[in-house]
């Protein structure tokens, strides 16, 4: 029972990893580490304070890659049983397989554009790309959590 409770807490945490990271970055203000990249010149300024938006985008992208990987693997290896539990799980997994790489590439492209010219317009584009990946990450995480919590439902 203790294990189940701990897993449910873990699942809840997993549902909002990016929000937690984002809140942390925002509330810390300038506490991001140092190091700023200009992709146009490949110059890396180790003394410049990192941009919180870039750090958040990179953290979200890393998190999304891990979640997508685990989700696609679990779903494919248990496809029939998960379909029987909830057919939507398969639909979300197929969306990730078809579009996951493109979502991550769009986020990377928006991040690189922002790093190349840190304008309000590019920041806005980065936010759109972040929102798209965050939404997909949330769907995948929710489906994994749903499958997990079925264990405690009679």
């Amino acid at each position, binding site marked *: 029972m203790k294990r189940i409770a701990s*897993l449910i807490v*873990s*699942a809840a*945490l*997993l549902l909002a*990893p990016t929000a*937690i*990271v984002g809140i*942390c*970055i925002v509330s*810390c203000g300038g*506490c*991001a*580490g*140092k*190091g*700023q*990249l200009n*992709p146009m010149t*490949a110059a*890396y300024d*180790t003394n*410049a*304070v*990192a*941009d919180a938006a*870039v*750090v*958040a985008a*990179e*953290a979200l992208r*890393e*998190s999304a*890659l*891990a979640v*997508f*990987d*685990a989700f*696609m*693997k*679990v779903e*494919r*290896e*248990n496809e029939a*049983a*998960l379909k029987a*539990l909830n057919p939507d799980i398969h639909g979300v997994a*197929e969306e990730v*397989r*078809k579009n*996951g*790489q493109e979502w*991550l590439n769009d986020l*990377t492209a928006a991040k690189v554009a922002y790093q190349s010219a840190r304008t309000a317009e590019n920041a806005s584009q980065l936010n759109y790309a972040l929102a798209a990946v965050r939404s997909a990450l949330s769907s995948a*995480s929710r489906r*994994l959590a749903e*499958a*997990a919590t*079925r*264990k405690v439902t009679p």
Partner: protein
Amino acid sequence: MSIAVPAIVLTIEAALSAIETLSALVPRLIAQAKAKGELTVEQEADYQRRQQEVFRKPYAQPEQPA
């Protein structure tokens, strides 16, 4: 709904295991966000290599239409 019990148990165990592994990422990401700067060119290249690897895996291929 007639699913063999062992299949469900295996499925749930796999999902639980994935959640356990992934939830461990959260504190690591927070620590990274506080302590690290933007990725270097080499780190970005490493991420891109890992992303390519993930989406090349057999289980990452979408179903082909019948």
